[in-house]
C-alpha cells in the first residue's frame, strides 16, 4: 500500500507538471494580456503612453517568451510563492484564493453534507418502495428539480423569500450590523444568508445522487446473494442496508472522490446572483482579465484536489471493498 501511494504521488507530481505546463501554454496563447483591458487603457483621458505600456509589460515579465515565464512561475511556486495578480493591483494570489475559501467551503461543504444525508435515505427508500405511487411522485419531483437550472430557481427563491415573505436576505454573506451581533446571532445571520445559495447548490445534486443510488440499488437487489439473504430470512432492512447498499457504495465512493475539487470550485452564476464571494467568480474574472498568475494558482489548486480526490477514492475502495488490495 505504501509503495502504491508513493508511486501514485510521483505520478501525480508528473501529471501536475504536465497540467500546469499545458494550461500555462494555453493561457499565454489566448489573445490579450493582463494589461489589454486594464481600465486605464479604456480611460479617454488617462490612456497610458506606449512607453508606459511597454514599461509595465516588462515590469510584470509579460515581455518574456511563455515557456521561460512558465519556469519562472514554477520556480516561485516551488518556493511557496504563487505570484501576484496584475489586474488586481498586485494582490498576492495566495491571499486572493484564501479570501474566497471560507465562503466557498461554507456553501459547498454544507451542500455536500446535505446531499449525502438526504440522497442516501431517499435512494434507499425509493428502492424499498420501488414502483409505488409515492416513489413515482418523488422520482418525478426529483427529475423536475434536476432539470430546473439553478439560476432560475435562485431568482424565484429570491422573489419568494426576500421580496414576498421577507424572511431571508437577498444577497451577501452578512448583514450590515453583523459586527454588533452576539456570537449566536452572527451564526443565525450567516445561516440566513447561506440558506438560499445552499438550497440552489444542493437540489440538483440531491436529485442526481438519490437517482444514482436508486439505479445502483435496483441492480444490486437483483443479485443472487441478495436473494439468498432474503431466502435465509434476513430482515428486509438489513438486506437493503447491510447486503445491498454496501455494494452500491463502490461507485458512490468514486463520485465522492471526484467531488473534492468541486468543493472549492464554486459556481459562477449563483455566486453572482447572491453576491457570494466564492471561488467561481474569482476564476471567471481571472480568465476574462487574462490574470495569468491567478489562473495558474487556481489551476494548481484544482489539479491537486482532483488528483488527491482520485487517490482518496482508490484508498476508499480498499476500505469499502475487502476484495480490493494494493499489495
Amino acid at each position: 500500500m505504501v509503495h502504491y501511494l508513493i508511486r501514485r504521488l510521483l505520478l501525480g507530481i508528473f501529471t501536475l507538471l504536465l497540467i500546469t505546463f499545458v494550461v500555462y501554454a494555453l493561457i499565454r496563447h489566448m489573445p490579450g494580456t493582463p494589461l489589454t483591458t486594464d481600465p486605464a487603457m479604456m480611460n479617454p483621458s488617462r490612456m497610458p503612453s506606449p512607453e508606459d505600456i511597454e514599461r509595465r509589460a516588462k515590469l510584470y515579465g509579460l515581455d518574456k517568451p511563455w515557456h521561460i515565464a512558465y519556469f519562472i512561475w514554477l520556480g516561485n511556486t516551488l518556493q511557496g510563492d504563487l505570484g501576484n495578480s496584475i489586474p488586481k493591483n498586485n494582490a498576492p494570489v495566495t491571499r486572493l484564493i484564501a479570501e474566497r475559501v471560507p465562503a466557498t467551503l461554507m456553501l459547498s461543504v454544507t451542500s455536500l453534507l446535505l446531499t449525502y444525508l438526504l440522497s442516501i435515505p431517499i435512494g434507499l427508500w425509493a428502492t424499498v418502495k420501488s414502483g409505488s405511487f409515492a416513489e413515482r411522485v418523488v422520482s418525478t419531483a426529483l427529475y423536475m428539480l434536476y432539470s430546473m437550472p439553478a439560476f432560475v430557481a435562485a431568482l424565484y427563491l429570491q422573489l419568494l423569500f426576500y421580496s414576498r415573505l421577507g424572511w431571508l436576505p437577498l444577497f451577501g454573506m452578512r448583514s450590515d450590523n453583523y459586527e454588533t451581533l452576539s456570537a449566536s446571532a452572527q451564526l443565525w445571520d450567516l445561516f440566513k444568508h447561506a440558506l438560499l445559495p445552499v438550497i440552489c447548490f444542493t437540489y440538483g445534486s440531491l436529485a442526481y445522487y438519490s437517482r444514482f443510488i436508486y439505479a445502483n440499488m435496483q441492480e444490486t437487489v437483483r443479485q443472487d446473494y441478495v436473494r439468498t439473504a432474503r431466502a435465509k430470512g434476513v430482515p428486509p432492512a438489513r438486506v437493503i442496508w447491510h447486503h445491498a447498499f454496501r455494494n452500491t457504495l463502490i461507485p458512490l465512493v468514486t463520485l465522492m472522490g471526484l467531488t473534492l475539487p468541486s468543493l472549492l470550485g464554486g459556481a459562477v452564476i449563483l455566486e453572482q446572483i447572491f453576491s457570494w464571494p466564492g471561488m467561481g467568480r474569482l476564476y471567471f474574472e481571472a480568465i476574462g482579465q487574462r490574470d495569468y498568475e491567478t489562473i495558474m494558482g487556481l489551476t494548481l489548486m484544482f489539479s491537486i484536489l482532483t488528483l488527491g480526490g482520485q487517490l482518496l477514492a482508490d484508498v476508499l475502495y480498499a476500505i469499502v471493498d475487502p476484495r480490493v488490495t494494493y499489495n
Partner: protein
Amino acid sequence: MSHRPEPRSTRRLALTISILSLAVFLANASGCGSGENTPAPAVKSDSESGAKAKTAGTAGESKAATEEEEEAAAKPFVLGDLLEPFTPPSLEDVDRTAEWIDRPVLSGAEILRKKQQDKGPPTVTAEQALKLKNDYPKNKENNDIILNSVGRLAPADGAGVDFDATFVRHVSGDLKSTNPIMISSITEFEYQSLAGFGYLGFDQELNYFGSKDSIVSWQMSKDHLIDKIVLRDDLTWSDGRPITAHDVKFTFQVIMSEAVSPPAVRQGIDQLKWVEAYDDRTIVFFHKAALATNTTNIGIPVLPKHIYEKTIAADPTLARSAEHSRLEDHPVVGGAYELVRRERNQEHVVRRRESYYMHNGKQVRPKPNLNEVRVKVIEDVNTALVALRAGQIEQVELRPEQWVSRTNDDEFYARNTKVTALEWTSFHFDWNCGTPYFSDKRVRHAMSWAFDYDELLNTICRGLYEQSRGNFHPTSWAFPKAGPTPFRQDLNKAEDLLDAAGWKDSDGDGIRDKRIDGRLVPFEFTMLTYQSETGIQTATLMKECLSKIGIICNVKPTEFTVLTDSQQKHKFDAAMGGWGAGTDPDSNSNLYMTNEGRNYGQYSNAQIDELFLQGRREFDRAKRAEIYGQIHNILWDDQPYTWLFCRNSFYAFNNKLRGYNFCPTGPYNFDPGIFGLFKPSASR
C-alpha cells in the same frame, strides 16, 4: 472484482524526477524565486535630477517574482528617476517673472447652488415630485420636474439635513485599491472622491476650478508654463499630520519613478516638467510646454509623504509588503471620509471624518451631508434592482430594459424614483481604414447611408437614446455651430457610392466585388462586436441592411479582451464600440490622430493631426471651440466611424435622497457630485 496495482515503473519515476529537477533547475537558472533573504533595496540619491534620497524601509515580505524584479530589487530605488534633470528657480524668481493670472478658486456646491437659484424656485416640492411617475421617453416633463426639485442642494447652512444619515449605494465592481495612485476603475475613482485629498475640481459643465476647501489661491503664469497653488493651513491627514505641499511633490516623484507602476495616473502627469514645494503650502507646477490641456495635468492624487517615504523603497509596487497590505485596509486619508470597513467583494464603508471639517475646535469647512456611505458590490443587475425595490440599497444605475419595463409599477415608486440625464457616451461602428474595404471614404459613407437608424433607435434602443451626430456631443462647447445633419437610411445613395468606389457585382453572384492587385475580392467582411444584447442586435441590423446592397457582413460577438486585443493590433475589418468623454475635447485626440493608441481603425488625416495640435496650443475658449468644430466636421466628412447613438444616464434613487445632479459623465464625477446628496431630517 479485483484491482491490480499498476506495474512498478522505474522509468516513469525517473522521468518524473528528471522533469521536476529540470523545472527547479531552469527556475533557479532563470533567477526566479529569490526566497526569504531578498536584501532590502537601498535608495540611491540622485543629486543631478534634484530627486531627494529616501530612507529604505524593511524588506518586503514577498519574493521577487521575475528576473526583472530581482534586478529591480538589486537596483536601488530612485525616487522620480523618470524625470529629466531640472533645477527649479527660487520662488522669488518665479514670482518676479511669472506675471500671474488668477485662476478661479471656488466651491462646486456653491456654483451649483447659485445655478439652481438662478433657475428660480422649482414648480413643485420634492415630495410632490416624488409622487410623479417618470414616463421618459414618452414624456420628458416629469423627468425634468423631478431633477429640478429633488435635485436641489441643501442650503449652505445645512438646515434640514439629517447629518446622521447613511447612504447605501450600489457598484458592480469591487474596490481593488485604496491607494490614490493605484486607482484605475470607476469604483476606485469614486472612492477617492470621498476619501482622497484633492485641490482641483470641475463643475457640471466640466470647467476646472481650484477647490476652496483645499487651497487659498491658484495662479497661472502669463506664458502658461507655470501654475502656482497655495494650500490652506488647516488641512490634516486622518492621522492628524498636516497635509503639505511636500506631500504633493513627493507623490509626483513617486508617480514618476520607474519601479512604481501606477495603472492610470501617470498619463498627463508625465507632461509636467517638475513640481516643487517651496514651503509647506506653496506648490509650483512647471509644464514642459504651454498647452491648454495643462490644467488637467496638475491634478495629482496625493499620498501622505510621512508614511510612504519610509516604505516605498522596500516595495515600489505599493501592494506587496506587509506594511502596504496593512495600509490598503487602513489607509491614511486626506479627504472628507475615511475607510471604516472593507470586506472584499462585498462592500466598503466610509465615514465622515471630523478632522476634515473641524480644525483646532473650529469648523473650517462645510460639514459633509452624509455621515456614512456604504458601497455594496452586487454584480447581478437584477439582484441590485430587487434590493433597491426592497429598500436595502438606495441607488442603482438602471439598464435600459429595467427602465422601460421593470420600474413603472406602484411598488417601485412607493420607495423610489428614477431619473435620466444626458451623458457624453456614444457608440459607433469603427471601420478599419487599413483594409481594402474601408480605405476609401466613399465606402465608409456608403456604410453610414445603408444603416437603418430608425430601427436602431426605436426598436433596439427602445426610444431611449438619441442619434449620435459625430465625435462631440451636441451639448458640448466643442460641437460646431453648424453641426452635421444626422444620416438617414438611403440605400440608393449607398449603392451609388459603392459603385463609384469600384465595388460592383461584376460576376453576377449578387455580391459586390472589386479587382484588387489583380484578384477579384468579394465585399465580405467581419464585424466584431461586444457580447451585450444591444451590441449583437445593432451589428446584426447592419448585416441585414448591407445584405440588401450586395455586401456580406459576418457578425462575430467577441469576448471583450479578444475584441480589444484585435482592435489594438488593428486585426479586424470593422468593430462596434463606444467611448465616454474626457473633461477636455483633446482627450479624443488619441482616437483620431495618426498612429495614436486608441486609433484602432488606422485613420489618418494630416489636417486632423494639425488641428488637434492647434487646439492644445490655443487658450481662448471661443477659438478652441472653432478648432474642435472644424475637427468635428472633418471627421464627419471622413466617417472613420459610423456614429450610432448617445447613451444617457439612467438611475433609480430611494425617495429619501435629495440633491442628485448629473454632468456629462454621470452623477458623481464632478464637484459636488456625491457631496450634493443628502437626506432631509424629516425622512428619519
